[in-house]
């Protein structure tokens, strides 16, 4: 017996994913309109962590804003610290000693490793395999120990200064870093054996949420998310800053090795491979680092001349840019922060159409978003 369609009406269900949800990586709220398990539409609703960082930047001095950049992306605080320092130095035309630049690159790459470790670990945990997360935490712990030796902090480092860094590397740091790199490099292959090429894991990620190279550029994706779509663009190589031109490394891009180019698996693999490249950069940097001062003298009452500057740097979650306008006073006149995760949210609605609910989690994990960067 067939029934007329209107006798058994079906209805789309509106589900609220977040702001409190284990896999939204923070207080992201996604409004899911689903037909059973199939997502008809997923609209991200951001802003639950808005702290007004840009406005704060206009009310504090240039040096005082440094601790706030820790909170921009707390998993890659070193990168944000250095990005702010580079922006202000460009604005005021300050020369930075070479040793300081090397130290910045070292801490940035160490932080990139620890940030990618969290991305890898939490992504696998989202996919239901909890064990790799703890393995990644184990390795991150050693990076945290290194940072603790440098600046006393383990999460919000506040290490860079305008004109250099706050302190020279402690004694034995170079050796400890070498030790860590020797310990860590084989672990990446271990992760691949443990989970990366696991059949279930590959099936969950391959061909899911494919971002074409045109879309990736068109929607302004940056960092690993852009490279996952096969676009070979890395600010460290294409718009080199600091001492990156002196260092050799490959730009990792997605290859569609297990599915379509630009799917979740490609974005995941880009991060895994980037950890290897970071190790490579670190080995060169600690071999090349010169002796010398670690900071130039910057006047205590620091008033850059009226000017404006935009500096963009390659952070673990994409391009972090600071646009600073100075009017000759102690505080910036205007500060605009461009963060990778926020821009990534643009494409979220487009790529999640027609996926399953479980795939939404995979998409969030593969974009490796972080909420303080989205909401600022």
């Amino acid at each position, binding site marked *: 017996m067939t029934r007329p369609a209107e006798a058994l009406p079906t209805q789309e269900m509106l589900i609220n994913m977040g702001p409190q949800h284990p*896999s939204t990586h923070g207080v992201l709220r996604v409004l899911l309109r689903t037909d059973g398990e199939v997502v008809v539409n997923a609209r991200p609703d951001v802003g639950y962590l808005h702290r007004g960082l840009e406005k704060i930047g206009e009310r504090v001095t240039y040096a005082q804003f440094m601790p706030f950049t820790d909170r921009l992306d707390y998993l890659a605080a070193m990168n944000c610290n250095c990005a702010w320092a580079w922006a202000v130095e460009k604005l005021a035309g300050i020369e930075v000693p070479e040793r300081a630049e090397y130290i910045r690159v070292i801490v940035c790459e160490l932080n990139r490793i620890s940030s990618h470790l969290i991305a890898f670990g939490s992504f696998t945990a989202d996919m*239901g*395999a909890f*064990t790799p997360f703890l393995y990644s935490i184990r390795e991150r712990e050693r990076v945290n120990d290194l940072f603790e030796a440098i600046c006393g902090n383990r999460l919000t480092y506040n290490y860079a200064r305008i004109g250099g860094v706050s302190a020279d590397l402690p004694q034995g740091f170079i050796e400890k870093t070498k030790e860590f790199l020797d310990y860590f490099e084989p672990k990446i292959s271990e992760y691949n054996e443990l989970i990366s090429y696991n059949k279930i894991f590959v099936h969950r990620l391959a061909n899911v949420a494919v971002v074409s190279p045109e879309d990736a550029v068109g929607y302004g994706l940056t960092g690993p998310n852009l490279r996952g779509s096969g676009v070979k663009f890395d600010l460290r190589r294409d718009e080199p800053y600091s001492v990156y031109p002196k260092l050799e490394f490959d730009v990792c891009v997605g290859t569609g090795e297990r599915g379509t180019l630009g799917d979740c698996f490609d974005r995941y693999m880009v991060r895994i491979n980037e950890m290897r490249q970071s190790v490579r950069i670190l080995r060169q940097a600690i071999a090349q680092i010169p002796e010398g001062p670690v900071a130039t003298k910057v006047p205590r009452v620091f008033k850059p001349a009226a000017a404006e500057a935009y500096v963009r740097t390659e952070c673990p979650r994409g391009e972090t840019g600071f646009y600073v306008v100075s009017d000759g006073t102690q505080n910036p006149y205007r500060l605009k922060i461009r963060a990778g995760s926020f821009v990534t949210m643009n494409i979220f609605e487009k790529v999640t159409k027609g996926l399953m609910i479980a795939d939404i989690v995979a998409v969030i994990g593969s974009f490796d978003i972080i909420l303080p960067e989205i909401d600022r």
Partner: protein
Amino acid sequence: MESLARSLVSAAPAIAGVPFWAVTLLVMVATAAVLLVFALTFGGLGSYVLRKVAGDIQVRIGPNRVGPYGLLQFLADGAKLILKEDIIPAKADRFLFVLAPYLVFIGSFAAFVVVPFGVGLIASDLNIGVYYVMAVTSLVVVGILMAGWASNNKWALLGGMRAAAQIISYEIPVGMAIMPAVLIAGSLSLQDIVRSQGGLQGIFGWNLFHNPFTFFSFFLYFTAAQAETNQTPFDLPEAESELVSGYNVEYSGIRYAFFFLAEFGDMFIVAALATACFLGGWHVPFFRADALPPLWGNLLSLGVFLIKAFGLVLVMMWVRWTLPRLRVDQLMRMSWKYLVPLTFVNLLGVSLWLLIFKGKGIPQLIASVF
């Protein structure tokens, strides 16, 4: 049960004055109590072992604070769960909400009745044992769906729907994968199935080594049963990272504990059934436990059965902490496109084997050559 009551009456004439039905009832209640204590202890210690195994796999320590080596952690957890506030959401369907955990728990606990723990250690050797297990464990799906619906929470509802689809889909491969053991024994009674595997000395009497098809069906059964009882990597109904915690998201306190215990009960039932049907049940390798005096024979066979079953439980825990989770469509595809056809082909293969070789397994055939 009645025979036990009769032997009790004949052993102790003092209770002969009591009506026979009362004695039978008493024996039933006592048996149920023993099984319940076993199930609860298994749930408690199982959770401890699960967490220790998880700790070991995940380079951590695991519970180590309450009691020596954290052994009493499950008592602390149990006390906490009992003392916790019992929250029922305001818009929940109160009656169904309260009823659901008990249905789930009964579904898994009732299956303990036919588990052949030893030579004579079985609460009730039903002649439809395997069928009975399949039937009562299906009750779980009603409870889970009820919990999901009554919570009035969309995540819980999704979890409930997933569970219903999953458990019903995987019941077919589970039933079909266990049929070879039934065919070989020619009986649905689990005790008969175990006895049928004692033919040859050592482990070669086990159904696992009977013929290539039974070897395969053990793994089919184990996989499908993991899915039927919502174990990782098929734990979609309670997928923590997707559905928050699935059908039990609104439950707290002792009601949550019932879901939890049911999960551990299911784990044990799967392991026990796999042991009984494929791994020789309580048969001691290279030794005849049923030839010993009843007391020692029962104790020895109980020990051996539990070792085998717990071994399988450990494998489940190991899998649980290693593999990621399937997606719901992949899960369904796996059942209907792979497991169901495979188990049917497998059953056909076993049937043909039994027909051609007149019920003899490979070890028997080899033995008959010499």
